């Protein structure tokens, strides 16, 4: 039991000094990650890193020495000379890096240029990578010293790594969202939302695109919802097993994996020769693309309806369709609705399948009887509009409008996804069988 007790005498060498070294490594880690994106002052950051390198090397060696002398029996390190050797090599490595940097042995203008590569690795970049690696080294050694080379030290390191990457992932994803919000919010105004674009996107708004997306998605849902929900019901309620349901399942999983651009090619090959470049072609393609999602979610939500409901209804003399219509569909409605909304959001955000079927027009969608859109006309689309603006960006200044369009698109898609999540969570809490 002696090993786990930290006596006050060696607390200093065993805990405080390695902790300081760990702190230094954390500082090095953060600054080396941030140095390149933020483009800090190189001279200043180099001095900072030199100081950290030297101090952590000293801290590590002093604490290792003290710990080893303070309570020899408690240190497993003594028993295993390999570990001491590794620690000494690490410290020597740190000192070498420090010396090279401090004595300015390498010209700061130094850069590596590989044969044939179209890129230069500057000294700053290599140096910050080295600092990044050495910060990980210091962190490992200091935590090993704190935990006297016990297994728990490794555990702490790995949890740290997992937490760190989780945080990095969330930071990246959060940054994406906030960049769009921050840059796009300036472009949003009533005029932007209510006027068609003019002068190839330099002026005006995006109302025709919103309208085009709205109708395309609505018609796509009208195409895909009956087909998808119908086949979901058939697969789960009517044919429990059998060759046909297996074939359909295979077809659905294949369709689910088909890249969106292939749907675009399909539309170009089959539908455009029949209908021309028009709203209806885009809608059919988007609906087709959504079909597998709707079938799968319908099946999932039908699976969650307990069998006792089906049996109870059948025992009362209801036919299969009556059971499905009156009992099962209402219970599975929330799941089906969630799937529908998610697929609508996906259709609204897809560019690749419809990029040859929509046009960069500023004309509003023409209507028959004032409210039914004429499906044979070509329309504009939010995603396609954004794509065109990105293409134009090199030629003239449309960046503000591009950010604004991106924000509207993102807001639309995320709002729909949010509604789906809320519905799902609401019913998951409310419904209990």
């Amino acid at each position: 039991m002696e090993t786990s007790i930290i006596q006050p005498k060696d607390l200093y060498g065993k805990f405080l000094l390695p902790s300081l070294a760990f702190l230094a490594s954390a500082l090095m880690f953060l600054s080396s990650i941030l140095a390149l994106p933020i483009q800090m002052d190189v001279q200043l950051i180099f001095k900072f890193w030199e100081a950290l390198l030297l101090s952590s090397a000293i801290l590590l060696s002093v604490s290792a020495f003290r710990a080893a002398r303070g309570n020899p029996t408690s240190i497993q390190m003594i028993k295993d000379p390999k570990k001491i050797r590794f620690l000494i090599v690490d410290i020597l490595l740190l000192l070498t890096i420090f010396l090279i940097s401090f004595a300015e042995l390498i010209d700061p203008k130094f850069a590596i240029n590989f044969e044939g590569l179209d890129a230069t690795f500057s000294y700053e970049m290599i140096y910050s990578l080295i600092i990044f690696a050495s910060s990980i080294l210091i962190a490992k050694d200091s935590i090993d010293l704190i935990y006297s080379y016990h297994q728990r030290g490794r555990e702490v390191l790995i949890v740290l790594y997992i937490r760190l990457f989780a945080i990095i992932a969330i930071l990246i994803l959060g940054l994406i969202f906030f960049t769009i919000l921050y840059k796009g919010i300036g472009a949003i105004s009533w005029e932007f939302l209510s006027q068609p674009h003019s002068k190839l996107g330099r002026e005006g708004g995006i109302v025709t695109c919103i309208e085009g997306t709205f109708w395309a998605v609505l018609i796509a849902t009208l195409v895909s919802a009956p087909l998808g929900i119908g086949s979901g019901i058939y697969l789960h309620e009517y044919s429990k097993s059998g060759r046909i349901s297996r074939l359909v399942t295979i077809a659905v999983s294949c369709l689910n994996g088909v890249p969106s651009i292939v749907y675009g090619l399909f539309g170009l090959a089959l539908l455009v020769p029949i209908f021309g470049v028009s709203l209806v072609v885009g809608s059919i393609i988007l609906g087709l693309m959504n079909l597998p999602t709707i079938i799968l979610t319908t099946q999932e939500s039908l699976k969650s309806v307990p069998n006792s409901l089906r049996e109870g209804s059948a025992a009362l003399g209801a036919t299969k369709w009556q059971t499905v219509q009156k009992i099962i569909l209402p219970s599975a409605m929330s799941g089906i609705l969630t799937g529908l909304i998610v697929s609508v959001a996906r259709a609204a955000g897809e560019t690749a399948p419809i990029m040859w079927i929509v046009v960069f027009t500023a004309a509003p969608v023409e209507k028959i009887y004032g409210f039914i859109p004429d499906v044979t006309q070509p329309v504009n689309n939010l995603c396609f509009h954004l794509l065109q603006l990105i293409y134009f960006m090199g030629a003239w200044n449309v960046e503000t409008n591009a950010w604004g369009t991106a924000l509207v698109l993102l807001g639309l898609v995320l709002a729909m996804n949010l509604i789906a999540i809320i519905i799902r969570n609401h019913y998951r809490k409310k419904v209990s069988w």
Partner: protein
Amino acid sequence: MPQKAFGDKTIWRLYNARFIESLLFLTAISSIVFMLLVFYYLADNGIQTFRSFGVIDLIFGHKWNPYNNLFGMMPLLVNTLLVTTLALFINMLIGIPLAIYLAEYASPGEKGILKPAIDLLNGVPSIIYGLLGVIILVPYLQDSFDMITGRSILAGGIVLGIMFIPFMATICEDALHNVPHEFKEGSMALGATKWQTIRNITLPAASSGISSAIILNVGNIVGETMAVLLVVGNIPKIPTPVVDIFDRGATFTSIIAGQMGEAAAGSHHFHSLFAVGLILLVLVTILSVIADQINIRIKKRFGGY
């Protein structure tokens, strides 16, 4: 009385049920029909190129130049491979730790916020990643590596890698979550620490789920169009040396998206783009079938739980 039980209404109801069942059957058949149609029309338009240029010349040809009727797909294959490898590396490096954190370490409160947030980010349209890549990533890479243009295979890999982090995290988290509790509890009861349990029990048990997630993600990355089209430069050539990720390139999807607009319908160029699409379709279908098979195996293995 028997006559009443089979009255007009009941018979009508039976017919009605039959009618509805056959209607539902038709909707179920529709997805088979659609799949066959997609394959047929892609093959119908793509095969012509193979017929007129030869399969070997097309797939192993080193030059893609539509103006000289050269449609070698080797550059596309190499570039797609490079982009996918890079993207998958970034994706796994960040996505799997995130999944482990969500499944094993996050408190219920953290999970309640993080899971919906990741679900939401799963739905961000790809064109938005393309916009961010063009405006932020490409100039940054150009600056820091002193490149001629920042549009490169590297940029494509980074954008795609980040784009599919939420997907990877969601699927892997599911796989980790589906490992039966008894396994973990048994390991803990034997005195293993949390990380030892994860490494020796949870990850091996979830390994087939994770590999199916990785395969699905490869399919996603290979099939993604808009983001990669905007940042990859879209110039089909084999980089020299082959691993030069700082060069511009063109993937299967980006070449279709970038050149279909200028290809005249019915020309060799048009049909060769369909041939590229056909290869892409076959590739992704094989990947999704493999992922499906793995999933079926998982269900069999953990079926008892």
